[in-house]
């Protein structure tokens, strides 16, 4: 799919490459959107990928002296969702990141990437707009800053120039007198992505609203504010009547269309429903009620593992050197493939399966530097200098991993095609949370689909494996 693949070790190298290749290059961070777009032929002419996921410090989440939060371009959904700072001082963003669903996608997908894809149904943009976020764009020439609402100009359209990348996202941290929340309606037929979503950030002075930001996603070509509702709320206490009125006003801001994910009438109506629910929770100060205390991230790695030396794959000029299941591998072919195909075709490790090649099914789950990822959305050269674990490496010596044992005993295996992916997710979960509850198991396995078992026995097998591991 790509002719050249670059893995710079500092930002200047990346920007220099961008300056040189211009439209023929794209920055790739998590790649969860980009690979799909390329497969679907939506990025014609892109021959060079510049992978910034090996550059140290690009995944930082920082609070500056002026109480602004800064997100680097490699901040993934999982990093943000698990960040104490984001949960405490930018809860709507944490909630949106958590809603992304599949942990394997959250481990790779970045917030900056969402802004570039600029789909109105992308969950993270709505809270960022409500939080008043700005983006910093950098090129070899210098940097500029734009409010996020200006950066995104339409459906899948933004202000990014060919030589620029999103270098940072920043927004004021929420203060003690502020409350915020994100709410999503999704999971109807046709698509998992939002039917609509809403974020609200309110500032209070002794129970009275002094400032209100309410933003709506998927009800218009871009994320929109609900200005009448915002204005109305200022100076009011959040009584049920006020909430009802504000919710009705929020509906006016929605200008949705009918599509296969939902009718316009439904979306408009739902804006009212979720505005009422959100404001109600904020009034009761229970906005983080459903936010899990311990998130199953399916990752044992906190931060980027940087490359020591840049690795440029121009044509087939360089071998991918990697470690799979503890063994060193060197691949002189296959750099233009996905990691999944590299594993199956070049390494002949066929245990990892392809169910969709679009990040939907989880059959291809492997560990990349300790994090569960969908290998169908990872470019093969990303494995260079990294460590991969596949289903073939799950056994501990001759011993089956406890989840392997319980999957057999509890009959959690039917056709078996989804099984390797489930086992990888489940084993990682137990590493992270040795005694997960049912909810955590479900959250951890959201990214894995099974058409045979109905999941029931899979959940049981994970529970039993947890018990077995604890008993030693």
């Amino acid at each position, binding site marked *: *799919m790509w002719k050249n693949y670059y893995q710079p070790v500092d930002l200047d190298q990346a920007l220099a490459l961008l300056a040189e290749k211009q439209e023929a290059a794209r920055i790739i961070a998590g790649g969860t959107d980009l690979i799909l777009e390329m497969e679907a032929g939506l990025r014609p002419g892109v021959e060079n990928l510049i992978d910034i996921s090996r550059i140290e410090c690009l995944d930082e989440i920082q609070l500056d002296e002026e109480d602004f939060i800064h997100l680097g371009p490699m901040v993934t959904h999982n990093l943000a969702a698990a960040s104490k700072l984001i949960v405490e001082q930018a809860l709507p963003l944490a909630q949106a990141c958590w809603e992304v669903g599949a942990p394997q996608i959250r481990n790779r997908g970045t917030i900056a990437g969402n802004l570039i894809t600029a789909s109105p149904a992308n969950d993270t943009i709505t809270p960022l707009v409500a939080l008043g976020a700005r983006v910093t764009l950098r090129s070899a020439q210098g940097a500029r800053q734009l409010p996020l609402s200006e950066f995104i100009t339409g459906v899948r359209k933004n202000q990014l120039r060919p030589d620029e990348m999103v270098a940072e996202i920043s927004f004021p941290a929420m203060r003690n007198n502020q409350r915020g929340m994100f709410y999503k309606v999704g*999971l*109807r*037929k*046709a*698509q*998992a992505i939002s039917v609509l979503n809403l974020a609200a950030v309110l500032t209070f002075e002794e129970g009275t609203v002094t400032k209100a930001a309410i933003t709506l996603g998927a009800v218009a070509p871009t994320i929109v504010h609900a200005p009448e509702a915002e204005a109305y709320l200022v100076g009011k206490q959040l009584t049920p009547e006020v909430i009802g009125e504000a919710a009705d006003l929020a509906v006016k801001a929605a200008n949705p269309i009918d599509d*296969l994910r*939902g009718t316009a*009438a*439904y979306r408009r*109506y*739902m804006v009212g*429903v979720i505005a009422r629910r959100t404001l109600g929770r904020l009034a009761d100060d229970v906005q983080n009620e459903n936010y899990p205390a311990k998130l199953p991230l399916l990752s044992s790695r906190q931060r980027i593992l940087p490359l020591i030396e840049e690795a440029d794959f121009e044509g087939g000029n360089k071998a991918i050197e990697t470690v799979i299941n503890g063994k060193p591998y060197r691949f002189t072919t296959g750099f*233009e493939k996905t990691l999944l195909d590299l594993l*199956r075709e070049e390494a002949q490790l*066929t*245990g*990892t*399966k*392809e*169910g*969709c*090649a*679009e*990040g*939907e*099914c989880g*059959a291809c789950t492997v560990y990349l530097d300790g994090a569960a990822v969908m290998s169908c959305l990872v470019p093969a050269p990303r494995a260079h200098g990294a460590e991969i674990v*596949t*289903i*073939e490496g*799950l*056994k501990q010596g001759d011993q*089956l991993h406890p989840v*392997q044992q319980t*999957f*057999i*005993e509890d*009959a959690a*295996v*039917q*056709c*078996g*095609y*989804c*099984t390797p992916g489930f086992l990888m997710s489940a084993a990682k979960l137990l590493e992270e949370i040795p005694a997960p509850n049912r909810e955590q198991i*479900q959250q951890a*396995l*959201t990214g*894995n*689909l*099974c*058409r*045979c*078992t*109905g*999941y*029931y*026995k899979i959940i049981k097998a994970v529970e039993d494996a947890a018990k077995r591991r604890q008993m030693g």
Partner: protein
Amino acid sequence: MTKLTFIVNGEHKQVEIEPGEMLAEVLRKRLGLTGTKISCDELECGVCTVLVDDLPVLSCNYPAIKANGKHVTTIEGLASDGNLHPLQEAFVKKGATQCGFCTPGQIMTAAALLKEHPDPTIDDIEYALNDTLCRCGAYPAIVDAIRAASDKINHGTPIEYPQYEFEGGHKVIGQVVKRPEAVDKVTGAAIYTDDISFPDMLIGATLRAGIPHGRVTRLDTTAAEKLPGVHAVLTAADIPGRVNHGLVIQDWPALVGVGEKVRYVGDAIAIVAADTEDIARQALDLIEVEFEQLPVVTDPVEAKLDGAPLVHQEGNLLKHIKVDKGDIAAGFEQADVIMEDIYTMPTYEHAFMEPECSVARVTEDGRIELWVGSQIPYADREQVAAALDLQPQEVRVRSPLTGGGFGGKEDIAGQIHAAMLARSTGRPVKILYSRHESLLVHPKRHATRIKVTLGLKKDGRLTAAQTELFGDTGAYASLGTKVMGRATTHSTGPYIVPNVKIDCYAMYTNNPPAGAFRGFGALQACHAIECMMDQAAERLGLDPVEFRRMNALRENSITNTGQHLTESVGLLECIDRVEAEMLQSTNGAAPFAAREVKGQPNKRRAWGFAVAFKNTGLGEGAPDKATAEVELLDGGIAEARISSAEIGQGLVTVLQMITSQELGLPLDQVRVLLSDTDLTPDGGPTTGSRQTYISGNAVRHAANSLREQMAATLAEKFDVPPDEIKFIEGLAQVREEMVPVTDVVALMKQEGKEPKVVYEYWAPKTFPLGEEGDKHFAYSFAAQATEIELDLDTGEVAVIRTIGATDVGKVINPLGFQGQVEGGTIMGIGHALTEEFIIEDGIIFTDYLARYRMPSIHHTPREIKVIAVEHPTSEGPYGGKGVGEISTMPVPPSIVNAIYNACGIRIKTLPIDQDWLALELRKKAK
């Protein structure tokens, strides 16, 4: 030479014979009647027995001339009008024939006996057969067979297969055992088709029509052929043999040529083999194709109108299927209440996890070897051979493990294409469908619209049921006639209805073909009737469970197709058990009333109820059989071989258990080899919930005969009656002595007996609609209760708990049974709540998995209660019947009924539209 004139099997014969010629020789050599066998030629064995003027004679030493002017009857003359003589039938069913060499003599002797003693005692039989020897030791079965035949002749008692004990008593059957291939599956060692590759393998790819209806006017592949790395570009012109494939009707072109029509977006135009997938795809882009676009028809009801665009020249009606029972007009006249409604169900996608893959290569001896995860290996073999103009034996189909099928891997996908490309390039070729291509191409579940009209007495009794069905079978027939046939016969539910009229129209459209999918038409039928039953119960003020119980089929009921159900009707017990469980969960409170949820004022909970029935096996006149082979190998390992598909349902486990049970071998000494047309006989299609029953029976009978042979060998050697020999844990117990099975095998081989039995099992005969006789040889039954939680504001529905009871006759493999029910339940939840394969004007919207919402782990209810009900069928293996499909069927209507119970809104279109429901709820609230 002398002239011999006699009557043989009713025919006058005149032959010249040498002096001293014996009758047996005359029959065999001069008349070609080789059914009569000669074994000892010295009046010792009785194998050569024939009847002369109804008296048994040993023909080997009976001077032929003595038969002059007499009536001679041989084994060939026993059957009349193509029907087996009761003795023949009984020998088959009772397993009284093993190697079969003595069988003609046994049967003729028995025939003479029955003429003399129409109702012989066991002693009579043993006396009469005293001098007719059987080396295989089939004696107990022979005695049994003769008794059964005499019962049939004298009392018309049907001849049954031997009874096996149910409930307990089985060492293996019904026990919880591990799936034999599970270890491979959890370690990544399990091999599916795409896991197979060869060093010089090419990658194949297919150019699809992309338009729903049109004529190919131009096709130019020159540029593609020139692309470096491309090894073959083939079109319809390159198909050497039969262009069309199809399991029932061959109407589906493997490739559409110039001047021919494409009928749906997934039609194949050209195929390419190249060094890499990338090159193959580039080559597809270089193929130039032009179409004359034709008007499109996508709705089955519109397809039936005059003037609708024609998908096939012969018209859009694939089949009109009818059922008539009683007098429908009179039935409605007797009714106090008549209700009518229409229910629609969309196209659904199987979404098996493993996309279709075929790997083909040409072997050294010029045959085609094809790996494909197939539900019907022998059909693939036949269809590939026909397309390539080969004999079926020139194709070897091998199925690695299959990552789910659910009916979606019955038709041809890439099999023919891969074989063509391999033949043309001389190199192995793999065609792996992307998920996108898989969604586009393979047959789906029929979108169906069903109108149900019921006539009811005030007390709840059904007087009449009329249904009208329109099924969208898409561009090609696939199994459309059969699927909609099943929809037809199941559309009035498992109820006693005296007057029935059904009209079903299976219509061609320009949508993707529709074919087999778990539930096979009966799912759609079940949904419509079960929704209607709840509506009717409410109208009559009856409890929906009681109302169903009142009308439910039971033993001795007559179905809507006129079938008399004589046994194995567990529906009432299913209903009772589910109701009891449901009442327990509500502590006796009314389950169908809406309940509030503590702390969540916008939520309501309620239970919903539905029942289902589903035939096992092909039925409706389709001959249904399976052949299995069981062999004892050195080392005391038994191997069962049959071409039947393991698609995740656990067939390997079931066949292993059956073999183990019959041979008294430990499970780990039994291997099962499936689906290799060179090595395993045909088990028939994996469809219609038939494998446990049909293939299970084939293996059971094969293994059973093998055990009898072993017993006979030992009986001979140790001089004990064969039935005193027991087989336990790999040892034969002969009196006090334990003989390892390995020794028995050695002994058999020493005696020149192959320790192997091939058994062809024929399921009981069925009859097509419109003819007298049973339509199906067995039905499974189920009752289902589902508790849902409804969000009154958003219309979101979550399934909290399900209770399902299924009458499967006998649970052979409990874990497999549970797995089928649990998996089927979730699929039913998906069908009700999230799944819809969306096609707009013949163009597929749901062409990525991201757009086809199949249930994820979040849709799993807190509890899935699985209840096994066992009303055995006499003919099924240990009493068993099918389970694979029925588990999904009652789930969607139970959810729809539960939603109604929770909020009073009745949903008539699947999937349940959250938008619509939310807006209705709002209207209602106002």
